[in-house]
């Protein structure tokens, strides 16, 4: 880990409290460090500042200086006199400068907030009972905290389009829109897909999509996240669940090696949505739409709900016994996975060693990177496989070497973790020649051929950690329980290793981390509980110089020339 760069600090006084912040920090951020909330709608820490909502108006003053002499003007108590600006200033566009004074609790500020709240509500439909945003709506929250609490508006409200499909995943209700322009700026500045804009003017201004285009880029749902009101809603989540019933669990997006931080929102064992979790070093406050759909795998049609042995569903211990019996016959090879967690990879390595030093094969999964939060490496944990020593070189695109070994009769039993062997380049004939122990979460082509099927858990049903493209260890927690017939992957692997090797194996993330910290230099001194919410970058040594396939992404620059790109 490297120390944060030294920056110039400036001291400002907010409501009488001093705070030192880096030069250029705006007053909303400076105040939040003091625990002072300055309400805002249009300001978003990761977007440009436009200052249009006027909710963050505060009083601002500067130490007075005599223009003639350049000397400070002092007040009666000998302190420097503060020249308060006659007009309120927007905190979002006001950068901290030395000596600046801010007041957020005065009568003027109170009136400003009441005024803006009233204005925002006069043409708002107030349809909270049927609005998805209710419960996480800034309009509701600030109306309660800073509004007057009653309405003086007796005129007819403006009428605007209520149900506009902006794209496949986003629905727009223009009457609820407060015209903060966050969604427009997001589309311009992050995915660089400038399709949203306002038409008409004044109070009749209407958010709309460019004629003939759609909001269909892979980041479109971020507009729903940043919409402070219920104007933009997700077509997937819409009308499904009240947000106050949902429990948030921190997790990681597994669709690529970026490892965007997420929250999984669930109630009573069912996941309703996935949203990004802020991590300024990885995904800022964004995530791809594709990663949000991954929760659907939990209840997918092809989900493995039970372990199998000889084609029949059996309890996990029975399946494990069958697997151990096969493994004891020797001539084992292993197909590992960069989709497995760090802890699972560590235990799989133990299985390989206990099975007489079985060779471990891994296959690469690549796609096109989008330069943002979906990278070319479509597995979440390739770096983990390298760090745990499961593999020591970058994986090839197919299992050709394993195929050759099977053809040469060197392999009798194959342990497969989360891999489609046919898609990875093995032939039907090759599969006929081996007995397969397959650990997976979903049915795959050819799975019926497996001698033993071990049903594991998806990322949402267990805890663990991944190492992303920056060699940042990030953990995920269990959001929902898995299917009754499935077992913890760690338990399955630990049992295999223990039964084969004759020594006991750790089978929880915390205990596996104890073993990893003892054995692996990069993890020395670390514990599972000690991994911070935003992850921790570990020393990768020579591994960092491998020619990984990823190009640049939001917060990642490749160290070495990528292979074949």
């Amino acid at each position, binding site marked *: 880990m490297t120390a944060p760069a030294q920056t110039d600090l400036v001291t400002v006084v907010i409501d009488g409290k001093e705070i030192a912040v880096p030069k250029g920090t705006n007053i909303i951020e400076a105040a939040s460090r003091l625990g002072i909330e300055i309400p805002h709608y249009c300001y978003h820490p990761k977007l440009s*500042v*436009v*200052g*249009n*909502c*006027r*909710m963050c*108006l505060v009083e601002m003053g500067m130490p007075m200086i005599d223009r003639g002499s350049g000397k400070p003007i002092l007040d009666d108590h000998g302190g420097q006199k503060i020249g308060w600006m*006659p*007009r*309120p200033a*927007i905190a979002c*566009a006001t950068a901290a400068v030395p000596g600046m004074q801010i007041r957020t609790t005065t009568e003027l500020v109170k*009136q*400003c907030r*009441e*005024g*803006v709240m*009233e*204005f*925002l509500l*006069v*043409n708002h439909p107030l349809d909270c009972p049927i609005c998805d945003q209710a419960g996480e709506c800034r309009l509701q929250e600030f109306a309660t905290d800073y509004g007057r609490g009653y309405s*003086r*508006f007796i*005129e*007819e409200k*403006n009428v605007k389009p209520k149900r506009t499909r902006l794209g496949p995943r986003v629905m727009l209700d223009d009457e609820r829109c*407060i*015209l903060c322009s966050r969604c427009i700026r997001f589309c311009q500045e992050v995915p660089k897909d400038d399709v949203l*804009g*306002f038409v*008409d*003017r*004044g*109070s*009749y*201004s209407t958010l709309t999509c460019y004629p003939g285009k759609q909001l269909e880029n892979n980041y479109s749902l971020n507009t729903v996240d940043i919409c402070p009101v219920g104007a933009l809603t997700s077509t997937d989540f819409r009308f499904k669940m009240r947000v106050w019933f949902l429990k948030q669990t921190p997790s990681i997006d597994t669709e690529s090696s970026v490892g965007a931080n997420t929250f999984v929102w669930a109630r009573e064992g069912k996941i309703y949505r996935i949203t990004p979790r802020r991590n300024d070093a990885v995904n800022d406050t964004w995530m791809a739409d594709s990663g949000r759909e991954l929760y659907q795998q939990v209840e997918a049609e092809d989900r493995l709900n039970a372990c199998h042995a000889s084609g029949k569903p059996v309890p996990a211990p029975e399946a494990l016994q069958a697997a151990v019996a096969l493994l004891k016959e020797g001539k084992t090879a292993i197909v590992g996975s960069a989709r497995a967690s760090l802890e699972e990879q560590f235990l799989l390595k133990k299985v390989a060693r206990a099975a007489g030093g079985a060779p471990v094969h891994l296959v690469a999964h690549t796609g096109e990177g989008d330069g943002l939060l979906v990278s070319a490496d479509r597995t979440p944990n390739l770096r983990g496989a390298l760090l745990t020593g499961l593999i020591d070189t970058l994986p090839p695109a197919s299992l050709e070497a394993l195929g050759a070994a099977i053809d040469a009769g060197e392999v009798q039993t194959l342990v497969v973790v989360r891999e489609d062997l046919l898609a990875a380049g093995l032939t039907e004939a090759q599969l006929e020649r081996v007995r397969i122990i397959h650990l997976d979460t979903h049915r795959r082509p050819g799975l019926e051929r497996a001698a033993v099927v071990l049903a594991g858990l998806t990322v949402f049903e267990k805890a663990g950690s991944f190492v992303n493209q920056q060699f940042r260890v990030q953990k995920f927690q269990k959001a929902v329980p898995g299917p009754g017939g499935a077992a913890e992957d760690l338990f399955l692997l630990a049992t295999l290793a223990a039964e084969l090797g004759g020594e006991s194996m750790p089978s929880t993330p915390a205990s596996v981390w104890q073993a990893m910290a003892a054995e692996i230099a990069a993890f020395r001194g670390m514990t599972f509980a000690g991994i911070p919410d935003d992850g921790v970058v570990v020393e990768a040594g020579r591994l960092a110089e491998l020619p990984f396939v990823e190009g640049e992404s939001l917060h990642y620059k490749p160290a070495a020339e990528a292979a074949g790109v």
Partner: protein
Amino acid sequence: MPVQETRLIFKHIDAAGYTNDLDCYLRHGGYEILRKAVQQKPEELCEEVMKSGVRGRGGAGFPCGMKWKFLDRKSGKPIYLICNADESEPGTFKDRQIIHKDPHQLIEGILISCYAIQAKTAFIYIRGEFPEGARILERAIEEARSKNLCGDNILGSGYSVEIFVHRGAGAYICGEETGLIESLEGKRPYPRIKPPFFPAVLGLYQCPTAVNNVETLCHVKHVIDMGGEEYAKIGTPGNSGTRILCVSGHVQKPGYYEFACGDLTLGQLIHDVCGGLRPGRSLKAVIPGGSSAKILRAGERYTGKLKDGSSFDWGLEDIPMDFDSLMAVGSMAGSGGVIVMDDSTDMVEALANINAFYAHESCGQCTPCREGSLWMKKITTRMSHGQARQEDVDLLGNVADQIAGRTICAFGEACSWPTQSFVLKFRDEFLNKARAQAGAASTNGNGAVPLI
């Protein structure tokens, strides 16, 4: 004794035989001042403009010399000059006269100003409703180019400058300088936040930019002609030069008149210059600087102190028509649009009319102005349609108070000042209206007829 007009800008306008082509302009000594100016150092010209004290004629009355001084010359970025010809303030019609009848005066003013601030490119942003004006300017620029008055190496001075005419699409907000710049860049004319986007530093294409009104740029020509100090002798200290007043409303001879600043009072303007009110009518109110200026009510007394320390005690008709005096009485000289109302005027309807304009023209970017302007319009429209309530009077005032001073641009003040001043000064009339309507409602027993 009737006051004499001092025609500086309008010297030739409406003169018999004066046409808007280059030949005519040259016959009347045109472009001689430009010829003289390009021989001088640019800094000297800026110094003359500073000394002249000429204030912006667009509305805010900011000294032109200061505006130019603030231009960021250290950045090394090109400097742009924009001529704001988006004359949109209701009650104002002076720039159109200049553009239509003496376009070369404006172009000479622009060329001199460009040379003074060393701008290589100038834009004339003309409002969409002036198609003829745009055509005239295009032609005038071509004429000037043909005589090497504009374009490369003008008059052999080694200095090159291009002028482009850009037509707006018909939005009041494009008269706000940063809104204008956005529009010129091809975007929605959403005014920019200041700080950081002061045009003098981060203007057009994020380069230092001077935005001046048509009349102001014409004044620059005369400043350079006469010399700053000489020019400053016209008018009163702090209010130098002449002022074009556009008088509309209930007077016998509405029109445009040019006077030395402070030379005449509002009473003289109405009674001597404009021929007085219609027969049998008495003065009720005057909006002295375009529809956004605060209204002045007949019969009011204004007392206080001027900048120079002298105290004043004026009735409405005693107010001198200059920047500082109008500010001292709580209104502004604005864009020079004087709107006169006699006792036949229904103030509620007059305000409803003004509010309808501002609600229609609010750009919609920031909350208070966007929502407040339409709300005020809805209230005043309802009041003038027979459904006024007593509490509407205070409500109107309070809504306006929630806008002014809290918006991105000066439109917030522009749309709230009329309501604030009407409600304050004609409170009785607003209340009476509500009372009368409540009475009418009770007699027919069914309440007022609802609006469609």
